[in-house]
């Protein structure tokens, strides 16, 4: 039997933390990303510290990972609700925030985070001391999600 402490991210690079911007920039714009390109399939995507990205497209390609060190919110339109989906092997909310809807205005469309992976997939480690498994929404930051109340 072999045991692995962790496979990837054993030593996460430090985050230089900056105050989150007052204005959101759209996911769909290349200018919103440090790489200068909208994420494509297989990307290891980071919402950088200091930036506030609004998820304004219907669907991402299948990402390898999504790390949130800034803020990621879902664009909501109550008049014409849009269904939005993030496809990723894992989502790691680290020095940042993942927010869908709000207490006052729950999300109106269908917001989905679809996670991928199998029993042998790479595990995510928050640090040398904490491991989070794979195929997960891992959170050491802030996650707030508000769906519509049903009755």
């Amino acid at each position, binding site marked *: 039997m072999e045991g692995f402490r962790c496979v990837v991210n054993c030593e996460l690079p430090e985050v230089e933390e900056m105050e989150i911007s007052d204005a959101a920039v759209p996911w769909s714009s290349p200018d919103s990303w440090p790489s200068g390109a909208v994420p494509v399939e297989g990307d290891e995507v980071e919402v950088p510290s200091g930036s506030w990205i609004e998820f304004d497209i219907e669907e991402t390609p299948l990402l390898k990972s999504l790390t949130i060190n800034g803020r990621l919110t879902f664009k909501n339109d109550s008049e014409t609700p849009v269904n939005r989906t993030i496809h990723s092997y894992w989502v790691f909310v680290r020095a940042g925030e993942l927010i869908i809807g709000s207490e006052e205005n729950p999300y109106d469309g269908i917001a989905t985070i679809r996670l991928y992976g199998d029993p042998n997939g790479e595990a995510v480690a*928050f*640090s040398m001391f904490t491991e989070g498994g794979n195929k997960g929404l891992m959170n*050491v930051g802030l996650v707030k999600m508000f769906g519509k109340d049903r009755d």
Partner: protein
Amino acid sequence: MGDKVARVYGGLDWVAGDQVALLATATQWTHTDYMTIESYDNATGDITFTESLKYYHYGESSSTAADFSGVDMRGEVVLLTRNVRIVGNDTDSWGAQIVTSDTVELNGVQRMGQLIFDNVECYNCS
């Protein structure tokens, strides 16, 4: 058993396509049925499912009549569908997971995970 219908309260916001669970009411705790609504009559509360129920579910509201104040032993019908969802893609029945944790990073930075879920559905999670 074998039925495709059940009656709940009228006036709910349930619609075709919603998923519900009918909890076990007999001796086997595993006898929960997971059903998809085909139609819901808002006036009567009658539900028709897309498929037949596998198990028996008790539905009489005053089970003990005048005795014991007519204890209500009806099986619960639980609406599972929500519009904000965390979904595990179905691979080898390996579920997705949601982890909120504290951690200390190598440089000593402490992080304390916080999570608020309100009407969030977790599907294929383990």
